[in-house]
């Protein structure tokens, strides 16, 4: 199978994937990330026979994620899909909308990328199913929770002194004449501009190139879900609990809401992220999970290589399968320490 640079053909890839339904049993080789797990769980959900998901062995159906983009290979035919998440290749239905959003947006966050043209198209279709799109602030769940909580919960962008710090977040809202209950939609044009200015000036401290573009984007909502928060929550859950629970959520989609609640539960206790040491790994002082810490590091231009991210837990160090080649899932303690 060659792997030349060429035009992405997600539509063709989508058809290729669907042709795998003709198999009696199916084996899928995937990289270890939420998008790929959600893809294979969706495939499994509607497949009659047994399905194996492997992270190492060669298989009939193979998903690749590489530096030049992603590809799908099935029985000798390989199709390049560009940067599009694998979850976006599967049929969009009301039943599977939440998992597909979770797959796409977790990948967007994890790879620090824009939506691909194909994904834009899929999301346009999703609007017919009830998805709401609006230009908005890149802070989580602002339609649902008070502004100070959205700011407090924000990991991407990670706003120094405000993310993870409820006191400072509330202070900022009060400076805009708001209070604990003020929602983003309560701000008028000028206050919104002030807020934007404050956020960008904070971001510049860690990333000198930060602009308004880093805090404003097309934002997608569906029922209670904010796609940004949804993507973040599946990154967190897979990082700490492993892939089976994500697999199960695809089967019973109401579980995704639990994931969002878990993430809020974690974030609401406040958090910090400090890189304290580097070597053959990144060691971070943080009460987040390894992937969430990684996402914050990446914003500061760090952790661009594939050195594993470890969190310091008292005397010990902990990472997860995304960074390590291990059959274990969830948080993995480094026994060597």
């Amino acid at each position: 199978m060659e792997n030349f640079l060429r035009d992405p053909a997600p539509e063709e890839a989508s058809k290729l994937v669907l042709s795998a339904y003709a198999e009696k049993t199916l084996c899928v080789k995937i990289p270890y990330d939420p998008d790929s797990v959600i893809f294979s769980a969706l495939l499994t959900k509607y497949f009659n026979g047994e399905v194996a998901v492997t992270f190492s062995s060669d298989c009939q159906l193979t998903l690749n994620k590489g530096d030049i983009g992603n590809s799908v290979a099935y029985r000798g035919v390989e199709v390049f899909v560009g940067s599009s998440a694998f979850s976006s290749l599967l049929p969009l239905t009301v039943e599977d909308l939440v998992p597909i959003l979770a797959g796409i947006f977790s990948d967007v966050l994890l790879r620090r990328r824009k939506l691909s043209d194909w994904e834009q198209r899929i999301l346009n279709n999703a609007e017919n199913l009830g998805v709401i799109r609006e230009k908005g602030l890149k802070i989580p769940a602002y339609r649902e929770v008070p502004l100070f909580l959205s700011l407090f919960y924000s990991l991407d962008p990670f706003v120094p002194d405000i993310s993870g710090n409820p006191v400072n977040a509330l202070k900022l809202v009060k400076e805009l004449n708001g209070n604990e209950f003020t929602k983003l939609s309560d701000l008028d044009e000028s206050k919104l501009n002030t807020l934007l200015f404050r956020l960008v000036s904070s971001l510049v401290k860690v990333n000198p190139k930060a602009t308004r573009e880093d805090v404003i984007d097309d934002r997608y909502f569906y029922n209670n879900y904010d796609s940004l928060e949804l993507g973040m929550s599946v990154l967190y859950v897979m990082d700490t609990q492993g892939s089976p629970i994500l697999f199960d959520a695809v089967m019973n989609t109401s579980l995704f809401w639990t994931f969002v609640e878990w993430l809020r539960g974690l974030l609401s206790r406040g958090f910090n992220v400090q890189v304290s040491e580097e070597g053959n790994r990144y060691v971070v002082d943080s009460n987040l999970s390894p992937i969430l810490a990684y996402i914050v590091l990446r914003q500061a231009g760090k952790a661009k290589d594939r050195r594993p991210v470890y969190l310091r837990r008292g005397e010990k160090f902990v990472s997860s399968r995304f960074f390590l080649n291990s059959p274990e899932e969830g948080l993995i303690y480094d026994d060597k320490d």
Partner: protein
Amino acid sequence: MLSKELKDEKPERIAEQQVEDLQLIFKRLSMKYSDKIHDEELKVYSELADSLFEVRLAKVLEGHSLGDSFDSWEEEILSKLREFYVSFVMGHYPVRNGKVLCRVVKELYFSGTVLKPGDLIFMEVKKAVGLLLSGVVEPCSLFKKTRRE
């Protein structure tokens, strides 16, 4: 043997050697003879073996131990079945339409590939139970670790 088994609420200890001796006797009879009398004899003892199975399994189900008897493997099988059943009903496993998600524990051949420990496989409950009992896979438990950090 069965007669002793019926007298007590607890299972008797039946040593491996005792059973291997019996096996050899029956094996010789089965190979050597094929007539009305020996066919009937083997049928009578097959029925006794069947009852031995029932009585001893029922005792294990009631919580008794087979100790180091030749069939002590039944105990482990039953306790694994029990654990699976309870966890299954209590929603500890990812399931759908009679299939359950399992984690590969020992290399497993599947559809042209050898799956490695840590890989996942979604399969019929019945087959999963068999592979669970042989130590090749285990169902993915959703609640093994502390639930929240």
